[in-house]
């Protein structure tokens, strides 16, 4: 052999244990021992890594076995379904600001995108509105936190927008054979939404910040419901009505009842807010709130004062008028004049909405008994309480106000 051949053979020897190559097992175990001697922490980390590898190998082995494979796959499918259910439930129960809320919204958007017929879309919007109303009532029950007011106002504007969308859909489908069934769905859904919105209990801290928007959303939903009822009533006047009399009458009766409830609540609220005489200042400009008419469009936003006696009287008169109109609705329904009843119901709704919008701008003050001989029993904000409020509020004697 030449020198070159010998050198090559020496190099070849390296790859054999006989040529001085240690076994892999020894190399690894010796490394572990060495690392444990020089730094126990490093070995701990390595062990965790090895364990991970071990578990992975274990699962690989399980899946490679023909008998175990179907069981393992079934187990995985069940685990996936369970996880999916947990996530969906969590998302459904979530509120704005929660980690799962974006999933809920994304799911809604996907459903909306997959709904092709107007019927399906209307059903989804109705469901969405009811979900938003539920979210508002749950959010309102939470203690005041950052972003809460913004979230509620956002939800109310969504309800208002959805109600408008429903209105549009009804209009688009008015000549469709399904118009009546769509209207029935919308009417049922919106009355549910209105009921939910009316039952929202706002804490005093956020009441004056969200009440106007909430009133607006309720009004929008109500208007949509009335429009749907109109479609049903119009159907009755046709030669071949598909909706029975009793159905429309029943729905109208439901709305009348809800309106009476609203009147009752508003009356109680107005009484609680009224004082013997109060001059309120809107946006820094002093005005005497003695006018007999109230412009709903100029709903005060910064007012923290209470309502003066003449305004109270005016508001109560309006509510009385609404109540009388609702009585007329009852009368017309007895005569089976659903169209006339609907017109009157709209009138009553408009009055209630006007009063509601005005009243929602006021926040209730702590009540103390006011001794006033002119008013028999008035529980209202004491003058001392008003003194403590901001500069925009002034209390003036009844005589000077007049």
């Amino acid at each position, binding site marked *: 052999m030449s020198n070159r051949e010998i*050198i090559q053979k020496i190099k070849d*020897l*390296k790859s*054999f244990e*006989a*040529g*001085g190559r240690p076994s892999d097992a020894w190399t690894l175990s*010796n*490394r572990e021992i060495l690392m444990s001697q020089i730094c126990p922490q490093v070995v701990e980390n390595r062990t965790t890594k090895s364990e991970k590898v071990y578990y992975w190998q274990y699962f690989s082995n399980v899946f490679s076995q023909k008998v175990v494979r179907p069981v393992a796959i079934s187990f995985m499918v069940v685990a996936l379904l369970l996880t999916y259910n947990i996530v969906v439930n969590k998302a459904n129960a979530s509120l704005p600001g929660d980690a799962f809320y974006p999933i809920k919204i994304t799911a809604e958007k996907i459903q909306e995108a997959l709904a092709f017929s107007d019927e399906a879309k209307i059903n989804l919007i109705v469901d969405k509105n009811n979900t938003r109303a539920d979210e508002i009532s749950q959010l309102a029950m939470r203690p005041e936190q950052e972003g809460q007011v913004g979230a509620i106002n956002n939800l109310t504007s969504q309800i208002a927008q959805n109600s408008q969308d429903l209105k549009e859909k009804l209009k688009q489908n008015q000549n469709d054979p399904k118009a009546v069934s769509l209207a029935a769905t919308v009417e049922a859904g919106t009355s549910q939404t209105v009921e939910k919105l009316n039952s929202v209990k706002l804490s005093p801290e956020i009441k004056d910040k969200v009440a106007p928007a909430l009133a607006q959303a309720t009004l929008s939903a109500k208007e949509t419901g009335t429009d749907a009822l109109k479609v049903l009533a119009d159907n009755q006047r046709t030669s071949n009505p598909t909706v029975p009399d009793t159905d429309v009458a029943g729905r109208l009766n439901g709305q009348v009842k809800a309106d009476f409830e609203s009147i009752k609540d508003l009356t109680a609220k107005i009484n609680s807010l009224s004082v013997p005489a109060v001059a309120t200042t809107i946006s820094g400009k002093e005005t005497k709130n003695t006018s007999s008419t109230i412009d709903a469009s100029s709903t005060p936003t910064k007012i923290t004062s209470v309502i003066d006696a003449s305004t109270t009287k005016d508001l109560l008169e309006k509510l009385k008028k609404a109540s009388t109109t609702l009585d007329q609705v009852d009368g017309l329904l007895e005569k089976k004049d659903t169209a006339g009843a609907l017109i009157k119901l709209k009138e009553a709704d408009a009055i209630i909405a006007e009063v509601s919008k005005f009243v929602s701008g006021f926040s209730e003050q702590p009540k103390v008994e006011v001794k006033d001989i002119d008013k028999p029993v008035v529980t209202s904000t004491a003058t001392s309480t008003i003194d403590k409020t901001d500069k925009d509020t002034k209390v003036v004697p009844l005589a000077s106000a007049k």
Partner: protein
Amino acid sequence: MKNPLADKILFLKVKSQDPEAYGRFYDLYVNRIYRFIFFKVNSSAEAQDITSEVFLKCWQYIKEGKEIKNLNSFVYIIARNKVIDFYRQKSRETTSSINDPDAPEIMDEAKDLLLKQMQDSDLESVLAGMSHLKDEYKEVVVLRFMDELSIGEMAEILNKTQGSVRVLLHRALKALKENVNEQPGNNTKD
């Protein structure tokens, strides 16, 4: 050593007492050090023990903050010293020594292993030829042709001048060639 820059960075990390880096250093050097020791002690069990000791000792030096110019050579020097210690201890226990003619035929274990692993008469001849080399010849052959060290690095490890190392290497190769050609079936002379 394929990437000198990466190795330099690794050595710096090792010198700064980074255990993870020392783990990587171990991965790079364990085979070489084991082989270097194995050809000196002719037993895989002994080679394993001494290799373990070498890496532990090296880390202890690093931890003590002693100045290490070249970690590459340094670990070989520790290995060399450990082998010397091993033989010193062994000579106290038995009368046998490295060059004891009564010592058991070196590379017996290696020969058995080789025969089990492959049927290559040339490799067997080379292995047998190496087994009959003087210890200092074996050392230079392993360092130069197996571990592929430079003459400078070898000189540092063996504590000799580069000229001496060249001469030693030349003689070792010549002796190995003679030994190989003396093996049965390898009588060809170049």
